[in-house]
């Protein structure tokens, strides 16, 4: 049995308050279960309630043992780590993996730097848990017990990976934070920096990269996709910010034959009321046009693959 539970679905920054009660205000954190195996995707603030829940449930059966995958190291995706209770418990085993952009720091120092006296009363070296770090690229890993994961670079202003988990013929795919690849070179010959070759190569490269992403989603049982903006918002001034529109996510998921699409990484300013309206509106717009189920991510939602 492969399933995912959402513990945090916000983009950019936690946003608690009366306007985010239904969908939640915690930043990215997913709990994936492949029978007895526990996988956590992202250490946003949602990992705090996840940690508490693990201590109250799994811990009764034995120490916490989890594979943790970081989509990228932007702050909203790692900021919950210091408050993840299992890191203070002897016997906890965490294998943390994620991409690191071209710079000198390691994944361990980027995530672990949050645990230094200037930010936090406990230092990384004082943690009781057994934690290993691995830097990931585009690759495929066998996690054992029949669980595998494939990674794919996405389009975000920092190196960012999508994950495709497969278990007993079922699949859960994450594709956030992600903006459709696009040609960033001028295509108008009147533009002073126009270059015919760059324009052509740019078009081709963007198309090919988007096709690769579609192949990565192909026939996924569950796809959790970045939908920070509406198409209108995206086109009005969010180009290059590294996020997708609802329209783009729905279209590409449908094209790739996805079965359940989860709209994820809500803009922090989006209220419960707005998210409910958007969910109803998009469901209405695609009614009868696709067999794909579409749902707005909300904290506590559990989806089976």
């Amino acid at each position, binding site marked *: 049995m492969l399933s995912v539970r959402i513990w945090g679905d916000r983009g950019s920054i936690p946003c608690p308050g009366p306007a985010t009660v239904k969908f939640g205000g915690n930043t990215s954190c997913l709990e994936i279960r492949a029978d007895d195996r526990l996988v956590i995707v992202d250490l946003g603030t949602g990992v705090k309630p996840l940690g508490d829940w693990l201590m109250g449930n799994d811990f009764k059966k034995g120490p916490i043992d989890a594979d943790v995958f970081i989509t990228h190291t932007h702050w909203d995706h790692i900021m919950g780590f210091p408050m993840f209770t299992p890191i203070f418990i002897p016997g906890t085993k965490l294998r943390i993996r994620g991409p690191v952009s*071209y*710079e000198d720091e390691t994944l361990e120092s980027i995530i672990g730097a949050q645990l230094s006296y200037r930010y936090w009363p406990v230092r990384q070296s004082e943690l009781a848990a057994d934690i290993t770090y691995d830097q990931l690229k*585009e690759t495929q890993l066998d996690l054992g017990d029949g669980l595998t994961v494939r990674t794919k670079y996405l389009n975000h202003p*920092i190196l960012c990976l999508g994950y495709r988990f497969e278990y007993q013929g079922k699949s859960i795919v994450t594709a956030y934070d992600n903006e459709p690849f696009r040609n*960033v070179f001028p295509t108008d010959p009147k533009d002073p920096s126009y270059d015919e070759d*760059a324009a*052509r*190569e*740019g078009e081709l*490269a963007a198309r090919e990269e988007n096709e690769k992403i579609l192949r990565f989603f192909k026939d996924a049982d569950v796809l959790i996709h970045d939908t920070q903006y509406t198409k209108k918002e995206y086109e009005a001034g969010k180009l290059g910010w590294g996020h997708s529109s609802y329209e783009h996510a729905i279209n590409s998921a449908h094209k790739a034959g996805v079965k359940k699409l989860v709209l994820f990484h809500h803009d922090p300013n989006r209220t419960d009321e707005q998210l409910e309206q958007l969910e109803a509106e998009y469901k209405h717009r695609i009614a009868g046009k696709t067999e794909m189920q579409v749902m707005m991510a909300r904290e506590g939602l559990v989806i089976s693959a």
Partner: protein
Amino acid sequence: MSEDAERKIQAYIKNMPSLPTTVAKVLEVCNNPKTSPADLNQVISLDPVLVGRVLKLINSAYYGLGQQVTSLVRAIIMLGINTVKNLALSSAVLRNLTSKKDFQALDMDGFWRHSLCVGVAAKVLAKKRGVDPKQAEEYFTAGLLHDIGKIPINAVLSKEYVMAVSISDRERISLHRAEDRIIGMNHAAAGFMIAKAWKLEGAVGDAIAYHHSYMEYTGPHKDVVYSVVLANRFASVMEIGFSGNRYPEKIDNAVWEYLGLERDVFDEIEAVVNQEIEKAKIFLKID
């Protein structure tokens, strides 16, 4: 060549610096948050060492990409402008810059101009012959980097290199032959060491290794190798730039025949090549 000299060249290649002509511009472009992808592409493209280093990093195990990337445009779209900026900045800045003392035997600006001319000419020739535009960038890169082996020889064996250049002048022989005689190794071989270190094997590496011994070449990238040979000839006939070789050998008829080009093609492409070089000069604010 002594093992010591080879070791020196290898050590130099490991920390190979970028050319200062473009470094200031790279800094300016990369440090400007408003830099457009087109600016970034242009400034990196103009520096043979930087192009090589950026492509090397992109194709390294660091990113583990499934495909080999040979075009900067594609790299910028795939990895984003920030990543490529970072690569360029660190390549350009973290390495020691080539100092004038490293360029005793060669004139740095002349070398730069020659490299750019051969790159541009190789690309223009390829397009003229209807080569798939997708591959045109590879012709440019191959041409731009063909003489890269002169940099380490010049830097670590400068006394010998000054001698090689003067023998080439005095005896009216091609520079690569004088290099062989004095140093026991020529710039094509040193260049191939760089190509291997930068993981540029394939068309670019072959063009570097075989641009003088092209008649012995039996590999799969003859089209690129021969185009670079012809572009190199173009640069010396038209006297655009100068990279130390006052007496280049005439090229074999086989090259013309293989590429299906006539002698007057040089006159046909001269204006376009000059225009491209002028564009680059204005961009780099050099005279």
